[in-house]
């Protein structure tokens, strides 16, 4: 089967591209498989950088016959010069119609850079990909989540960035046995033009991975009241998060910001306190399994998205919730 994957099948291959152990891969493989099926195309997966330890199992579960693994000691990030060069080299050897990338922070740079490098079209913020009358249609969010747009892809190759938070993962009906193919790429002559002087301090848990989030917004009224959010989060064994306005005000650290210009989260439980529910914020928490809204304004947009709501002052409700949890 490996030998078939040459330029002969060029226009009919769908490939998922992921970086190391970045999240959302199984969701993207599920989507990629359905796109491949819709196009009658073969399906592949290319992993850049260190592969997940269970890469073979994941590939088998999603009916990916061959995983192409690109590993290179100089690879530092998904968006850097070496990564772009490595994938461009790969793309010259291996044809595809659509390359799907999970829309991580780095992928937002990688996807368009690679697209320009290999003369492919590019669409980001994808929420879904469908085949309509033989054409590929990408649904994406626009206007900070206020609208959805559907882009139609023309001829040639495309790179599509997909926000995986809203996708589900489902194993293939007929899992296959997968093999890992190591793909050498010659990027020895490429070095990063952008030098990192001071790295961000990654340490500690990340809100993207939290099961329970308690997020505070302007309704807190004052920086000192952010403590109430942190106390409830601690009582629930979760993490504190924040809306952009209060991060801009300096009430909470940027690493806690949820939304379009912050982080996309998908917790089991999201409690939004004093947050109005602007689309830009909802982009980052709409995938929560259960959303609870606390707001003084019964007409606040956040209630439209919530499963449960409490209309009231979050300065009273937050401590009451903390007491109720502690029992």
């Amino acid at each position, binding site marked *: 089967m490996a030998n078939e994957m040459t330029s002969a099948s060029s226009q009919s291959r769908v490939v998922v591209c992921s970086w190391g152990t970045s999240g959302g891969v199984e969701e993207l493989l599920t989507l990629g498989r359905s796109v491949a099926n819709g196009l009658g195309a073969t399906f592949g997966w290319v992993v850049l950088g260190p592969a997940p330890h269970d890469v073979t199992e994941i590939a088998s579960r999603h009916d990916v016959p061959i995983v192409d693994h690109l590993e290179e000691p100089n690879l530092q990030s998904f968006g850097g010069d070496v990564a772009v060069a490595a994938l461009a080299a790969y793309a010259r050897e291996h044809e595809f119609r659509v390359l799907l990338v999970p829309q991580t922070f780095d992928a937002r740079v990688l996807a*368009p850079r690679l697209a320009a490098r290999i003369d492919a079209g590019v669409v980001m913020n994808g929420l879904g990909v469908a085949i309509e009358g033989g054409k590929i249609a990408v649904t994406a969010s626009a206007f900070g989540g206020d609208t959805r747009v559907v882009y139609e892809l023309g001829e040639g190759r495309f790179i599509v960035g997909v926000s995986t938070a809203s996708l589900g993962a489902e194993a293939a009906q007929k899992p296959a046995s997968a093999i890992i193919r190591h793909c050498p790429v010659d990027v020895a002559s490429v070095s990063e033009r952008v030098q990192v002087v001071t790295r961000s301090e990654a340490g500690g848990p990340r809100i993207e991975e939290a099961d329970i989030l308690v997020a505070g917004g302007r309704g807190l009224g004052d920086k000192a009241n952010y403590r109430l959010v942190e106390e409830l989060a601690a009582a629930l*064994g979760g993490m504190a998060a924040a809306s952009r306005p209060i991060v801009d005000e300096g009430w909470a650290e940027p690493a806690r910001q949820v939304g379009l210009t912050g982080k996309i989260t998908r917790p089991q439980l999201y409690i939004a306190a004093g947050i109005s529910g602007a689309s830009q914020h909802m982009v980052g928490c709409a995938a929560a399994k259960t959303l609870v809204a606390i707001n003084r304004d019964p007409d606040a947009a956040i209630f439209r998205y919530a499963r449960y709501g409490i209309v009231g002052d979050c300065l009273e409700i937050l401590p009451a919730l903390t007491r109720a949890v502690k029992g």
Partner: protein
Amino acid sequence: MSLRIIVCAKEVLDPDAVNNYALEGKLVIGDDGKSLTQSSIPRLMNAYDEQAIEAALRIREAGTACTITVVSIGEGQDILKHAASLGIDEPVAIQADPATLDHHGVAKLLAAFVQSRGGADLVLCGRQASDDDQGVVPALLAEHLGLPVVTIARSVDVTSAGDGFGVRVVRVTPDGDETVAVAAPAIVTISNELGQARYPTMAGRMAARKKKITTVAAADLGVAADGLRPRVTLAKQFVPTVKSACEVIPGTADEAAAALIARLRAEQVLRNEPEPARARSKDSGA
């Protein structure tokens, strides 16, 4: 030697007005099924691009001699007058209809413009446009020009380095701030963390009236019409429907809180015992 800065700016529909209409359920999609047609929605400069201009002005104020050019695709746009009123040196309109271009086309025109000026030391762009949120043009432009790109900047500082310039950028990453260095020429995208962009002064407004907007025909940039044919086309636009199923829990703060926690436990969203106690007993048992 003065630093040549080119800022790329886009005219967008005011996202706040779009947001208000969307929330009220009154956003109108035109007969073509994709355009937002309400004439009451103002057209203005993408706010991130305003912040890119602000970043350029701050570099000048920090002591680096600069020429600041602001370029936009389209004709008859007020955003270039706005740019002129902020004290930039030259506003430039590339004559082409942005509605007929995809992002590749936009990047090709901008790249051709930068090259027509003999290059730039620093190209500044907003991190994304607040209409389509795609954020791909700066990276496409970087590749077309063969330049490095640094995204999502909170601050940009320029220093003289030998006979050129060095650029130091503080980026806002998901893990916190990161400082990077790159040699000019380079492209940097500016994020809202840069802070509020300035408003034009009265003197700036007066001066802008006399400032002529340079117009450049797309054909004069040597970009073949063929190369501008879009590969990605907008087919549809709609307002997503939210299935509201919110159950409002009544009572005093304590009553509502207790009822909510009980409900979340019953649905096993939360465990059936106080969370810290569970964590403690597990830890001690292990």
